[in-house]
């Protein structure tokens, strides 16, 4: 019980500490893709392009996720016995 409370307390403290730190900081919190990779790429005149298949149009990402989820779910269900075979008795 003690361990659970200690672990939970640590997680909450960490989360709150990070939340307060991030909210009060002036930093942009850019990813290293932006702060390192893109910085050097732009300096070398190779700025990043748009994704080759850009799904960022309105609700299109939702539709694509729905279709991918449905296709993945159907495939997993269709191949269920192959994916999760029964354990042998031996």
């Amino acid at each position: 019980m003690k361990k659970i409370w200690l672990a939970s307390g640590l997680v909450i403290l960490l989360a709150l500490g990070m939340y307060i730190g991030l909210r009060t900081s002036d930093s942009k919190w850019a990813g290293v893709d932006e702060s390192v990779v893109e910085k050097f790429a732009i300096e070398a005149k190779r700025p990043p392009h748009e994704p080759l298949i850009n799904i960022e149009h309105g609700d299109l990402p939702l539709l694509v996720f729905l279709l991918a989820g449905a296709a993945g779910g159907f495939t997993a269900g269709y191949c269920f016995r192959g994916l999760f075979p029964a354990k042998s008795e031996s």
Partner: protein
Amino acid sequence: MKSKHRSITVILVFTSLLVLSAVPAFAMHITEGILPVQWAVLWFAVSAPFLFLGLRELSLRRQQNAQLMPMIGLVGAAVFIISCMPIPVPAAGTCSHPCGTGIAAIFIGPLLTVVVSSVALLLQALFLAHGGLSTLGANLASMGVAGAFAGYGIFILVKRLTGSWWIAAFLCGLLSDWATYSVTSLQLASALHGTAPFGKFFLTVLLAFVPTQVPLGILEGFLCVGAYRFILTRRPELLKIFTV
């Protein structure tokens, strides 16, 4: 009583995650269009043999062990989540992510880690604009190949030399992360150095990653120790069944 404790823990952890999720964050991988075509093709050529060998190993091992596929799916999902999980690093004021390929390599072997990394990177490129299709080969070479083989190699070496699983697991997580970003630096330097000396450009890019990746590498080391200990104490038979 036990279930009550579990419920409390789950609620507390989810609350903390919700608090954290309110913070905008970003991640890495080489983005679409950054690498010139010849370099993108070269890195596809570097990654392709590892992917081919991984697919062949998957085909062989699934015939020997019918339980392998669910484990592969589970490890693949873990690599997908870990490698697009942005973590803010207050010391640097930036965000980045661990890779998860070190721990994956311990559980399923480095070649199968290349296979699961390729699926994770493809999904991230298609759905999350994280990385890119033209840079898939380069990202697979850095995260899937270098990360997995460096992590797995150091884990086996240190475990044999010291006999200590936790030192081995920590170094596996740490060095798989650093190997990934070192290869990313190499890829950027080789493609973009122009008239500047290659070595100097490589060191400049590598040093730019240091403030973010040193703490994150250490975090990934602890993540690796935690995951390995969890399996070792609860389901040690999995390590015998699935590890190479």
